């Protein structure tokens, strides 16, 4: 093997692990919160860990456990989890050309690990011109997945010591976390119209149809805005001349 290839492989591994570690730290409060709420709503520690390991979707797990605690019918719980996670359909479509490159078993495993930050970081890496290889993707995903289960177990053990999440400021972390992820894409050419449509759509839908459908409605509106105008030509020559003109 060539030394250059070895370097690439090492970069993929270390960068993946590093990205995973940052997400692990930021998502730790939610893992702990979920574990605590799960035990509070009648889950055993093992059941909480099982849900984190298999469903692996923070917001949907919090919704699911809340309904479970209120003894809501099982099919409604599953439907609610499905509704909260519905946005992942868009993620897997958007990453079809990236994850589609992986060999079969790796591909289906990669889709299992496709959570919000995993999606955001994968798009960012590809945008930066570095290939999001399976090695990179799995290094990041494994760190996040393992830490999600571990923090769930910690929260389930020490749940009763946490008290009111609002008093500790935990409730504000998730929207701020997503705000940071969103801002990472502000360099894209149609970011502002898409963002405004998504924001307006979700705010109105939240009021009219309620949660969690506001996510799908807002997303649909934002995507529609991007699809309606004639798509920009892929290689825009005018850009070059504009740069030249500015340089003169």
């Amino acid at each position, binding site marked *: 093997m060539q030394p250059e290839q070895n370097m690439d492989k090492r970069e993929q591994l270390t960068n993946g692990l590093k990205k995973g570690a940052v997400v692990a730290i930021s998502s730790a409060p939610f893992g702990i919160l979920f574990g605590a709420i799960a035990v509070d709503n009648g889950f055993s520690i093992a059941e909480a860990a099982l849900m984190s390991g298999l469903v692996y979707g923070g917001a949907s797990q919090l919704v699911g456990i809340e309904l479970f605690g209120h003894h809501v019918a099982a099919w409604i719980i599953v439907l609610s989890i499905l509704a909260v996670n519905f946005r992942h359909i868009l993620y897997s479509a958007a990453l079809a050309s990236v994850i589609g490159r992986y060999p079969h078993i790796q591909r289906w495993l990669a889709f299992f690990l496709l959570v919000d930050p995993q999606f955001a970081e994968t798009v960012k890496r590809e945008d930066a011109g570095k290939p999001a290889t399976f090695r990179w993707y799995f290094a990041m995903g494994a760190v996040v997945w393992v830490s999600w289960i571990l923090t769930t177990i910690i929260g389930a053990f020490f749940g009763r010591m946490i008290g009111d999440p609002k008093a500790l400021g935990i409730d504000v972390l998730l929207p701020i976390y997503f705000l940071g992820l969103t801002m990472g894409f502000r360099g894209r050419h149609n970011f502002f119209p898409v963002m405004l449509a*998504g924001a307006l759509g979700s705010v109105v839908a939240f009021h009219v149809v309620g949660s969690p459908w506001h996510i799908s409605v807002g997303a649909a509106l934002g995507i529609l805005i991007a699809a309606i105008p004639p798509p920009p030509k892929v290689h825009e020559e005018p850009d070059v001349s504009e740069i030249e003109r500015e340089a003169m």
Partner: protein
Amino acid sequence: MESEMNAFSIDSGTAMLIVVAAIATYFTRVGGYVLMSSMKRIPPRVESALNAVPAAVLTTLVAPPFVYGGWDIKIAMAVALIIGLRFPGLTILVIGWAAVMAARYGFGLGV
């Protein structure tokens, strides 16, 4: 306490619920890919729609909490937005959290 004793037990009904929820979630995580790979070539409009996914979807997780949250949440998110123009994710999170704690305990907002 009773619940302490069966901390490691798994109820079969609960396990079933978790597995079905996991299958439903996995379906959403492969669904888009399966749909896309059934298309022979991707129309340009679909492609620009897919390019809009990060901004469109992530925004829907941010805007409603800001609009419907109290002044404590609004202030913390506004501070996080300004910090986010310069600093990476973890810094945004820490300063945003500090801002909400300051709003709640320093100014008595939203408590």
